[in-house]
């Protein structure tokens, strides 16, 4: 395990060490409609704590409601144009993968210098030419989409943080285009039935969608081929749709794998049946490196009630719904099909904040400003780095990733089942029999005076047992010091043994015992009183 050591470099120190400080550049995103930005004023502050100087292109945060003056207040330098920003920065942080820059009229990739590091979404599998072009520039490129999905890398996992926002936004988009309320009510004007929502694919986005739909008041059902998510679905108050089929679809990295044809047939039958019933379908099913699986056919959409909504979060990867148009909202026979691919960008402020935090964690793992470097031995850094000093290092060698272990809070409390096995009858009888024998032996042989003392002892023990159980646990320490004091009663034994003859051994022994007992009495009572005086409301 790695623990990010707290990097507490005071901000003032950065200013002093100005020539050495690495500069992080935040350009304005140029993808049409993209409103996110790779650092917010808040994450910029964290970057400065890591020892970086932060440069921000003017208006970079405008789409996400972060003004230039907010960045300046956070200690960032504002740079007038993209070209000079790329020139000045040692590390460039971006959201969207590099593309043709409209105002500079050159491809962003050509701005990358050999000694520069670019961190961004790259999608190397889908964009092999871009990867080639970037490698030709000789720099280093880290792809946020290639962060391995292991628990140690969770804080860097931008796919998850973006999916979370996408899932939430999907519900909001659906609700704004759905003609009824999500929550059910009986009002004076009549009954409002609750909306029924089906979520297919319970990953991060699916869970966020379930949570959002549930808190709007809808009845939510969810389906996933991976049975491990059942508990998570139920913990959000949604119903988990199950096929009675012996196959688990857990693949590596927390994704699902491709299922058998028989399973898919059963699954499709379930969707066809549900499509007639539900009002809103949100699909989030993705299989890594493959086209998104087709789950909602044209016939299913046709069978849906007019006014229903389908949100296809897999639109960019080909869509889970047959009629999805990526990037668009269409009306198909009265059913609204939302294929928007910019859902996180539609919550630009929050999405930028989360993405910015992912980047801060990544730069911290890269060693901060002082020890900045790419450690190719580190499993997470290795997988994220797609180009290292001009060398394409993608795809990374396969790593062993364990299946997602159930988190402690969701695991069943098995411990409660491990109650001790009932003891055999003879061991239960052991103590009563022994005590009985001891009583008989004492009764036969002990003298009368001993019996009186034993009576007193046993009764006093029971009385003590009853009295002490009432003592408040907060007073257990004073209880111990009071009992220390009263067990000093042994002084009366010493006192009775002291005689007028100072030289007799009995007197000496008695005097020492008296001394020790008195220390106990005085010390015990006094320290108890001291402690009890401290207790107040």
């Amino acid at each position: 395990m790695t623990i990010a050591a707290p990097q507490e470099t005071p901000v003032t120190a950065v200013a002093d060490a100005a020539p050495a400080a690495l500069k992080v550049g935040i350009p304005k995103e140029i993808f049409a409609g993209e409103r996110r930005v790779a650092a917010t004023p808040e994450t910029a502050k964290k970057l400065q704590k890591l020892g970086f100087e932060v440069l921000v292109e003017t208006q970079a945060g405008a789409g996400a409601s972060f003004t230039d003056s907010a960045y300046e207040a956070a200690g960032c330098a504002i740079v007038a144009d993209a070209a000079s920003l790329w020139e000045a920065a040692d590390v460039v942080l971006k959201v969207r993968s590099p593309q043709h820059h409209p105002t500079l009229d050159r491809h962003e990739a050509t701005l990358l210098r050999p000694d520069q590091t670019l961190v961004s979404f790259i999608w190397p599998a889908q964009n092999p030419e871009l990867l080639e072009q970037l490698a030709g520039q000789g720099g280093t490129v880290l792809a946020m989409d290639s962060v391995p999905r292991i628990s140690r890398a969770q804080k860097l996992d931008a796919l998850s943080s973006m999916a979370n926002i996408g899932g939430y936004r999907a519900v909001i988009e659906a609700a704004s285009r759905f003609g009824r309320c999500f929550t059910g009510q009986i009002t004076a004007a009549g009954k409002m039935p609750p909306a029924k929502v089906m979520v297919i694919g319970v990953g991060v986005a699916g869970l966020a969608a379930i949570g959002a739909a549930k808190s709007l008041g809808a009845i939510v059902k969810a389906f996933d081929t991976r049975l491990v998510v059942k508990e998570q679905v139920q913990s959000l108050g949604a119903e988990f749709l199950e096929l009675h089929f012996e196959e688990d679809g857990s693949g590596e990295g927390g994704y699902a794998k491709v299922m058998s044809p028989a399973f898919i047939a059963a699954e499709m039958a379930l969707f066809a049946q549900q499509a007639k019933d539900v009002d809103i379908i949100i699909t989030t099913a993705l299989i890594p490196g493959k086209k998104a699986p087709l789950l909602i056919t044209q016939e299913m959409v046709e069978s849906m009630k007019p006014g229903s909504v389908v949100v296809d979060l897999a639109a960019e990867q080909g869509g889970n719904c047959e009629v999805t148009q990526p990037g668009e909202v269409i009306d198909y026979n009265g059913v609204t099909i939302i294929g928007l691919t910019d859902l996180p960008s539609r919550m630009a402020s929050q999405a930028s904040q989360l993405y910015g935090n992912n980047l801060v964690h990544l730069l911290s793992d890269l060693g901060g400003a002082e020890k900045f470097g790419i450690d190719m031995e580190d499993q997470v850094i290795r997988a994220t780095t797609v180009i290292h000093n001009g060398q394409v290092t993608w795809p990374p060698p396969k790593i062993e990733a364990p299946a997602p272990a159930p988190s402690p809070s969701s695991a069943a409390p098995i411990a409660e089942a491990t109650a001790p096995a009932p003891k055999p009858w003879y061991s239960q009888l052991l103590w009563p029999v022994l005590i009985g024998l001891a009583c008989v032996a004492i009764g036969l042989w002990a003298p009368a005076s001993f019996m009186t003392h034993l009576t007193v002892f046993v009764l006093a023990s029971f009385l003590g047992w009853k009295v002490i159980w009432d003592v408040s646990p907060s007073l257990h320490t004073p209880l111990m010091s009071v009992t220390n004091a009263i067990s000093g009663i042994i002084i009366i034994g010493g006192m009775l043994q002291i005689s007028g003859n100072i030289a007799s051994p009995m007197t000496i022994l008695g005097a020492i015992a008296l001394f020790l007992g008195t220390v106990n009495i005085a010390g015990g009572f006094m320290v108890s009183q001291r402690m009890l005086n401290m207790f107040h409301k």
Partner: protein
Amino acid sequence: MTNNLVTTAYIVASALFILSLAGLSQPETAKRGNLLGILGMAIAFAATAAISQGYPVQIGSIGLGVLIGVLAASRVAMTDMPEMVALLNSFVGLAAVLVGFAEYLQPSAALSGGDVIVHRVEIYIGVFIGIVTFTGSMIAVAKLRGWVPSRAVLLPARHVLTLGMLGAIAALGFPFLTATGDVPMIALGAMTAIAGIFGIVIVMAIGGADMAVVISLLNSYSGLASAAAGFMLNNDLLIITGALVGSSGAILSYIMCKGMNRSFINVVLGGFGETASGAAKTAIEGSATSTNTGEVIDLLDSAQSVVIVPGYGMAVAQAQHAVAEITRLLRSQGKQVRFGIHPVAGRMPGHMNVLLAEANVPYDIVLEMDEINDDLPSTDLVLVIGANDTVNPSAKYDPGSPIAGMPVMEVWEASTVVVLKRGMSSGYAGVENPLFFNENTLMLFGDAKTNVNGILAQLSTTNAPATALAAA
């Protein structure tokens, strides 16, 4: 003074002792309880003084004893209370040994026939309990002070050794009971020596957090030593008092053992290290997120309900005063701040409560584990200060864990948990703590006192009027 009058005085003293312990049930009545105990002791002392002799020696012993007792009691730091209690236990043990020897040398009553044997058995048992209490308590003090290693020190073949010692002690009883002349005295001396070593070996084998059980147990023994002295001296007051103290220590030991979900025998016979290394340790996948005092301040600012879970680490770092001050500031902002105390937190029962009381934390916001566990899911922020095993979720969820089934503070149910800890080392039980790897857990590494003082400093500046903001 007649014998009956003395006996009546003893009965009154016994009643006062019982009322004294009963008074400790509530903080409101505790002080009166302590005063009743002092009154009972004074009556018993006065009655005994009236029928005893050799006053110059008595006055000398008592004067010295009071002087030392008062000095120690007024100077001891509250963090050192476990040592103080253990030391006082050892005095009672030694006093019982001395009374036993003196009683053997000159029986207080003329005895004949079977009574002689019974009397000698009483002496033998009384001296045995007394010396084990004495040497065991001395080792406990040495361990708590760090004079000897506080971990469990296990001798090779110690079970054989302890059984051998017990056998020798039993065997020496025969010459003591039956022989005449100097032989019984030699047997008694030899038994005392062996039992002394026995006490040392037993307590050496117990380490760390189990010391709380040992101190309670020795407390119980010191009571039994008094009771045994009562048997040999024919004194019912000693027997009653000893029985009360004996039950008190036994109950505290029982509560401690239940708090760790371990049997009494398991604690006394084996160090925790043994069982933990035998069990396969589950490696925990994931990373701990570290934080800084600034973020903790932000969390404290936004939290409405805060629960603080202190452990022995807080006592070691002496951070209780700063923690109390933070509590006061947060409460003045109208936030709900409470403390959750695990039964085995600290090195003796109720240790944390005393430390917090010393730091002026009102006792009505210091709650027991059972009282606060149900409220934790609705708590915004939990600060865990120097506690580890008592907040370990694997006790509840991992049946293979060495601490499975131990009741723990369910801090992970809260929205956010901040753990103040020196490093990632595991706790006393040697068990990894998955809590540290949870997504809602933040780790604040470093010395607890430095960090708590850092939080306090920033908290008091943000509370001060706007000048502080301008400076920031």
